[in-house]
């Protein structure tokens, strides 16, 4: 790899490299003895390359390249600016960890009949995500977008022998395509008019094109729907909890960690770059903010009630996407009312949280995969005590649990802190409506983060602590070396982003500078790497490094003091348990009983079916089934109306050739009329 070349060249070479690995895997699958899983290691190396390219591209410089491929009159425009570089860096860092993990994970995975095809799709998926980021025109963007959707579809249906997997895959494909339709229209509205060829589809030409405010609003919301269907905003989230659990775990990690972020990249690109920050209206931001709040609340409430670990993580991804969307909404709202500093802060918070979520959700999904391999179990209700059989995985999982619960000094806290600081700029706003909405968003975010903590205490407490809830758990063993290495890489990312937020925010500011021409200003830069000061030192500051030193120092000092001054002896004995001598694993909480207070308190949010036994039942059964209201209020009516429409259209299909010939004749007449009429 030529490291001396420009970042864009390096990115393109990496995409080609990934494609080449994919082809090697296809070719290698003809030789059954060939250890295909080893191909994930060079794939991970590609991740490092593209991360390097992203890191060196994080400046105000925009690189472009026009490749003479594609349609006549519409060559491929490639473009790498700071926003692209930031997401490429994320893609590289996350995919390196996941590829390392996959090398260990797929080594022992004999279920998949064609690992060659899986590895091909995996690298095609990585490459197409990079191409979405690198595209500089609407055409290449949609082409890569579709390649990404197809590659991920094949990855989701890896276990396609099971009917529910195929069903989940179909749902995913359906929503992906509805989203793509909306994107087609977005680019159609935004394209530059008055050119003879198709060059109006290049992003450079779209920026700052004069459009009516109605057209801009249309483009804004079509992009919101189109990318939102991929990102999982409420109520377009339904594919996420179906597709994530059925995909192999590294694939779920990549879907949730990275692909959802590509959709967010699309939103930021269209809203802040192509429409432009000066043309955003605060009303749009308010709507985005409300949708974000609903998405976050919905996601975490449903995550809390799940007992399938991967399904729970999928719902929690919806929650985190909601938090990111809230950050974007706040940013638009502040930009739209003429307050650029909190606007920039909101954008930074959203981008920071995207990166954080990619890292910790990566660990959580990978950890779920390791658990599945070690115990064969996806259901939390049958897990327990894993901290004793897989202590290292348990430690790495704990880092992710603390990060996602926004516990200082880890990374999840930083982005949440930044979002709170944005929302607390509310006194700048003028009207009561804006103010109440932003204030309410702070309240919702606080509630969501507390619920997240409860949700992940449940995951960790039920899954890793206690004693095993089922005796049938087969060979329980520690995750393999590569699996742990992959998770360790991501956990290191969580720690670094948690401890050096000022440096990270400084890097993200290059993105906001290139998008909006604005950053946080002198105060933020003057404080040094130790202090995160978003607006002014008097207003708020945070230093996780000092925080960590103090808390570790206090803990160690307490430990030593207690050991030296008081009785240091320990005696092992059976647990006390309030004096009850009998103790079985079934007396512990299950995932469902742990979240029972939530089901009780938020019962209107769920569509619950419960069955409780009567005292005389010989075979008592406790059952609770939880469904999503949106299926019944939104999707069922849509499905019914589609059915009605298609049966109406079906009346046209009589099956007689004379009728079809009449249709052709009438169409011809109509077309002739159209051509002749002027």
């Amino acid at each position, binding site marked *: 790899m030529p490291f001396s070349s420009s970042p864009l060249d390096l990115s393109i070479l990496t995409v080609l490299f990934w494609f080449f690995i994919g082809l090697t895997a296809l070719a290698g699958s003809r030789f059954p003895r060939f250890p295909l899983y080893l191909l994930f290691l060079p794939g991970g190396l590609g991740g490092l390359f593209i991360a390097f390219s992203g890191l060196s591209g994080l400046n105000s410089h925009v690189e472009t390249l026009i490749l003479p491929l594609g349609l006549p009159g519409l060559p491929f425009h490639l473009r790498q600016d700071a926003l692209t570089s930031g997401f490429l860096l994320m893609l590289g860092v996350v995919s390196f960890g996941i590829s390392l993990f996959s090398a260990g994970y797929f080594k022992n995975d004999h279920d998949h009949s064609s690992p060659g095809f899986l590895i091909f799709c995996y690298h095609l998926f990585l490459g197409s995500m990079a191409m979405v980021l690198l595209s500089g025109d609407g055409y290449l963007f949609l082409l890569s977008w579709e390649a990404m959707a197809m590659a991920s579809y094949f990855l989701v249906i890896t276990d396609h022998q099971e009917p529910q997997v195929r069903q989940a895959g179909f749902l995913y494909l359906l929503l992906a395509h509805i989203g793509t339709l909306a994107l087609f229209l977005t680019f159609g509205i935004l394209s530059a008019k008055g050119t003879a060829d198709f060059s109006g589809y290049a992003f450079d030409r779209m920026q700052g094109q004069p459009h009516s405010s109605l057209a801009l609003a249309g483009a804004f919301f079509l992009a919101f729907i189109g990318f939102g269907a991929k990102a999982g905003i409420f109520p377009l989230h339904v594919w996420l909890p179906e597709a994530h659990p059925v995909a192999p775990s590294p694939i779920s990690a990549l879907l949730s960690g990275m692909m959802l972020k590509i959709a967010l990249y699309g939103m930021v690109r269209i809203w802040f770059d192509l429409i432009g920050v000066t043309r955003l209206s605060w009303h749009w931001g308010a709507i985005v903010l409300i949708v974000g709040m609903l998405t976050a609340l919905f996601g975490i409430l449903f995550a809390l009630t799940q007992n399938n670990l991967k399904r729970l993580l999928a719902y929690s991804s919806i929650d985190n996407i909601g938090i990111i969307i809230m950050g974007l909404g706040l940013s638009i709202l502040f930009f739209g009312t003429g307050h650029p500093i909190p606007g920039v802060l909101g954008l930074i918070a959203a981008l920071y949280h995207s990166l954080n979520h990619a890292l910790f959700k990566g660990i959580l999904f990978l950890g779920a995969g390791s658990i599945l391999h070690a115990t064969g179990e996806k259901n939390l209700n049958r897990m*327990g005590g894993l*901290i004793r059989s897989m202590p290292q995985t348990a430690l790495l999982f704990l880092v992710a649990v*603390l990060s996602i*619960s*926004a*516990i*200082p000094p880890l990374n999840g*806290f930083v982005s949440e*802190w930044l979002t*709170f*600081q944005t929302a*607390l700029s*509310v*006194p700048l706003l003028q009207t*009561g409506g804006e103010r109440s909405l932003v204030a309410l968003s702070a*309240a919702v975010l*606080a*509630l969501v*983060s*507390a619920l997240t*903590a*409860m949700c992940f*205490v449940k995951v960790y*407490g039920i899954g890793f*602590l*206690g*004693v095993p809830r089922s005796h049938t758990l087969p060979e329980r063993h520690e995750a393999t070396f590569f699996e742990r290495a992959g998770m360790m890489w991501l956990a290191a990312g969580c720690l670094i982003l948690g401890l050096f937020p000022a440096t990270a925010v400084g890097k993200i500011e290059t993105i906001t500078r290139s998008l909006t021409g604005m950053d946080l200003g002198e105060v933020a830069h*003057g*404080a040094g790497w130790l*202090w995160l000061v978003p607006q002014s*030192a*008097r*207003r*708020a*500051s*945070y230093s996780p490094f*000092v925080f960590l030193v*103090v*808390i570790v120092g*206090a*803990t160690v000092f*307490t430990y030593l003091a*207690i050991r030296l001054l*008081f*009785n240091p002896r*320990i005696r*092992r*004995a059976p*647990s006390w*348990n*309030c004096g009850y001598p009998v103790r079985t*694993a079934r*007396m*512990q*909480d299950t995932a469902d009983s*742990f979240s*029972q*207070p*939530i089901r*009780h308190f938020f019962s209107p949010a769920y569509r619950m079916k419960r069955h409780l036994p009567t005292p005389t039942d010989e075979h008592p059964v406790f059952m609770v089934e939880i469904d999503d209201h949106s299926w019944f209020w939104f999707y069922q009516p849509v499905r019914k109306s589609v059915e009605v429409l298609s049966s109406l259209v079906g009346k046209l299909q009589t099956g007689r050739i004379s009728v079809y010939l009449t249709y052709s004749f009438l169409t011809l007449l109509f077309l002739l009329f159209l051509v002749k009429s002027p």
Partner: protein
Amino acid sequence: MMASNLSTPLPSLLPRSLGELFQTVLILFLAPLFLGWINTWRSWLSNRKSAGILQPYRDLYKTLNKEAVVATGASPLFRVTPYIVFGSMGLAASLVPTVTTDLPFGPAADAIALVGVFSLARIFMALAAMDIGTPFGDMGARREMMIAFLAEPATMMVLFTASLISRSTSLSTIALTLGTRHFTLYPSLVFATTSFFLIILAENSRLPIDNPSTHLELTMIHEAMLLEYSGRYLALMEWSSAIKLLVYFSIIISFFLPWGMASIFSVADVPKAFVFMVIKLSILGPLLAILESTLAKLRLFRAPEFLAAAYLLAVIAFLSHFILEV
């Protein structure tokens, strides 16, 4: 405030850090005394003879000197947790201004981070309770998290309300601004104080949410999480909850009754500020005891309603700042 920290030369930073350390140690070692004071009042109010204001110290000393019995099969998490919880409470004690607002390490963590510190301690406590796999531990953890999911955002909103008035989330700045302003009765602060009092009851496992003096299996929350602890571990956990109680009262003092606090750490101001603090605490303590003695314990499923009231009051406080005060 922070910029001045970074630019001040080391010789000036050193005594100020010593001042912060002094305040922290003061809180750590006064916490059992405050608990003893509340317990004394509780005994008097229920017509009992009190065990003396120093009883919590005797209890701590006794448990610290006993050998620790650890359940077989306990993971390292179980044994590390008491130290982490104590360490985070120590950090919380150093962050909240009680005697002085001149805290050189204050800029490291603001009001949001303070809530994060409590959350850190709570998560570890709940996890440790679930570690052994006893039904009581799980029950305690579940109930604790049930209380927390409303109490924590409510705390956050109360702190935000105070931070809106002073335009800052830094705890020292809030205390300084509220302490030096001309006295007016802000409606938002009235709502916030009410809400915060409800939160104190819930977060520190006092009546009517939890009863600190019983081990009734079906009603306990905090005690259920500590059931498996003994010896020095139990002592650390009990001490930590005493510190937590005092820190919560310190927040009330510094936000809602901030008069008489030393704005600079000096020999002249600190004794005066200390006397002020003792007076405020010795009035607030009996208030809590009276409240507890007159309330009956709520049914567990009423607890979320109680806390939802606290949360809504806090949100109303936050909103009323805009509607009525700006």
